[in-house]
């Protein structure tokens, strides 16, 4: 067992455990921190899969952006001073059945896929990604820009303005 394989197992188990923790914890803040852990483990898995840039992006955007947003959301919607941000759950039995059957189905499916073997070790691919973004993937790249613009404006409108209030506040 090489060190890489060891790392892979370690981070996979970490990702799975921290994800399961989100499912079971009652405290929303703990869940958010556990999510950070999951994202970091997944980033590590990306690195093992020779996708360094994706891993960096994962850390930058997910850990640095989305989780921060989420934690802001938790804090804005809970009066932390009074009590812990606790939230329950429901539909447990049903959800368990559904998630289990989805999981089993996916496992079966994976067993049926003829995966190609990884023959070559990939060289660092940052340049390839950069060139790709400006050539083959130019159109999605530009469209994603529009998407971000609209999402930004929209989020500002939705979250910012209450009915009857002016631009002043």
């Amino acid at each position, binding site marked *: 067992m090489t060190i890489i394989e060891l790392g892979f197992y370690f981070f996979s188990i970490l990702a799975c455990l921290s994800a399961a923790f989100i499912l079971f914890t009652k405290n929303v803040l703990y869940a958010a921190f556990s999510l950070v852990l999951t994202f970091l483990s997944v980033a590590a898995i990306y690195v093992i899969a020779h996708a360094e840039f994706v891993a960096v992006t994962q850390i930058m955007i997910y850990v640095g952006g989305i989780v921060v947003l989420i934690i802001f959301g938790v804090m804005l919607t809970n009066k932390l001073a009074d009590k812990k941000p606790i939230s*329950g759950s*429901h*539909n*447990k*039995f*049903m*959800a368990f059945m*559904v998630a289990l*059957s*989805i999981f089993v*189905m996916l496992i079966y499916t994976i067993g049926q896929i003829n995966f190609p073997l990884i023959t070559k070790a990939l060289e660092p691919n940052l340049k390839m990604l950069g060139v790709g973004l400006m050539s083959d993937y130019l159109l999605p790249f530009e469209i994603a820009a529009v998407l971000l613009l609209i999402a930004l404006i929209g989020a500002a409108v939705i979250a910012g303005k209450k009915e009857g209030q002016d631009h002043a506040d």
Partner: protein
Amino acid sequence: MTQVNDILDWNPVTIMALLVFCLPLLSFIIISISKEKHQVLMSWLASLTMLMASLLSIAVLLQAWSEVYHTKFTWFQWAEYIFTMGLLIDLPAALMLVTVNFIAFLVHLFSIEYMKGDEGYKRYFAFLGLFTASMIGIVLADNLLVIFVFWELVGLSSYLLIGHWFSKEKAAKAATKAFIVNRIGDIGFVIGLSIIWLQFNTFDLVELYSLMGNIQVADGMWISASGSSLSLIWLTVAGIALFFGAIGKSAQFPLQIWLPDAMEGPTPVSALIHAATMVAAGVYLVARIFVLLNIDALTFIAFTGAITAMMGAVAALTQNDIKKVLAFSTISQLGYMLMGMGVGAYDAALFHLFTHAFFKAGLFLAAGSIIHSLHLSNQANDFDAQDMRNMGGLRKSVPVTFIAYVLCGLALMGMPIFSGFLSKDAILLDTLTWANAHQSMFFYLIPILGFGSVLITAVYVSRQILLVFFGEFKGQEVKSIKENSLLIKGVLLILSIMAIGVCWSINPFYSEMSWLMSHIEIPSSAFDIGMLSASFAPSHLMVSLISTSLLLTGVVFAYLKYRPEGQYFRNYSLETLKPQNFWQSLSYENWYLDQFYQTVFINPFHKITSFAKAIDTHIIDRMVNLFGMGSVIFSYIVAWFDRAFVDGTVNAVVFLTGRVGTATRSIHGSKAQSYILAAVIGLIIIIFLIF
């Protein structure tokens, strides 16, 4: 695939016919955009256009007497198929054209007086124009699809006219009922259309006639000239499915329930739509598609018609509403016509269609005249001018109406020298011939039902005449009842003259000598209908004698039972509402068909729909409920485990209540996520099913 590329040219006859179609449409448009203060002027104008249309259609009839005119043009093209539209004027079409226009003209005239002062006067005349135009569309169209289009338009305008007094809840309901029941018949029409399309790739009637001439029937397959073959059963299905459309429109068993309710509309509308024209469209449709029908389909039609004739006649026996009696009698007479079509008496059935149109319009308008007179007289506030229990002795007050009513009534019974006798006898003769041609006794059921209906018809017509016109008036002020204006009287007189047999045949006792019937040719069908192979043709005289004696028996029976001195007449008042025995209630309630549909279709349908709604919006909650229960049980087990192994009882009870609380709370609400859950489950099921 496309057989039609040459477009047939216009000629003077078809142009005239097109004009006949456009005139009522014009009247509809002009009246809709005119101002309300000109409404009386407009109604005269509408009558005038109808007069012009009638004259034009007579001109068309003269031209089409011995020749068929056909004009068509491309409507639209889809892939390699061409859909056309056009006019096909043969003798039945031309006769129908005259009938529709002439009766529409008379109804327009009648309505000017009848609807005077009505709130929706303008709307009424506008819709009348729309209806007439679409009816003419059905008559002239050369193409099943176009017929279907006008078929729907006729349904729509009839809907609007039945609901004319929409502020009456009953009228609005009746309109909806008529529309929906008709649509059920239309499903059959559409299925028939699709089968015909599949086999022949055309809807054009003339082409269908020639294509049907070239089909071959071999090994139970139905092979068209182009080589397309279908199992023979589909030919029967197509015929019956198309006939199903006619069942809806012509109010045949089992869809006749809408017609009695449709009497909520103004009486002239009932005369035009629900007696003379629209309901006859079903019969006319069967005539148009006659060559498409094979023996099985025709037998089906014959039995449906005969059963309806009997059921309608029986239901007419005990009605109290003057118009409902006529409505049921219409159902019964339409049954006659279809029975005639089914046994191959194409000419006789059409002949009955025309004679019936006139005398039934006469009866309805006479009834309308009575109702109008009673409305104008001084009666108590809650007086129901349509209820026969309020009438009696009216022959002195409204003599002209009385005469018209009796003349048309005699024609309806089929009394010799009246028009109804000629056509009804022709049909009965043919049913008997047809039954003879079949070997089984079973087929004699149809002539038996036919003759039986003659008897019952005589009874209910006599009953109505006796109850309405004889004896003493049951309302308050008999003196204030006045005969209507000259306009109404004139219309009634014209129609009652048309009820006399001489107008239709030189010899009013012998239908074969009718100028009309002898000209209608039975289209040559690919199937042997069985008329020709009859081993024994019954004598005409014998049929006439049987039917006349049945008729007289009926009249005598009716006189004995319903005569003004009799017990029935004396007891006949608003107080004795209830039918006295099972048979009477069966008749009064129209064989309990409405109740039957209510319990068998509508109630379960309501249940199913509310169930479906519940499924869509609540299934998740139900599932959650179920699993909530499951988790309660689960929690009990856990609790029991706790109690037994972990902790003391006190703790366990606390824990248990907590658990039950969570479980019940999870039963409520939770829609957003339940939606997701349901969707995911749906996906899993789909994947599972595919695999």
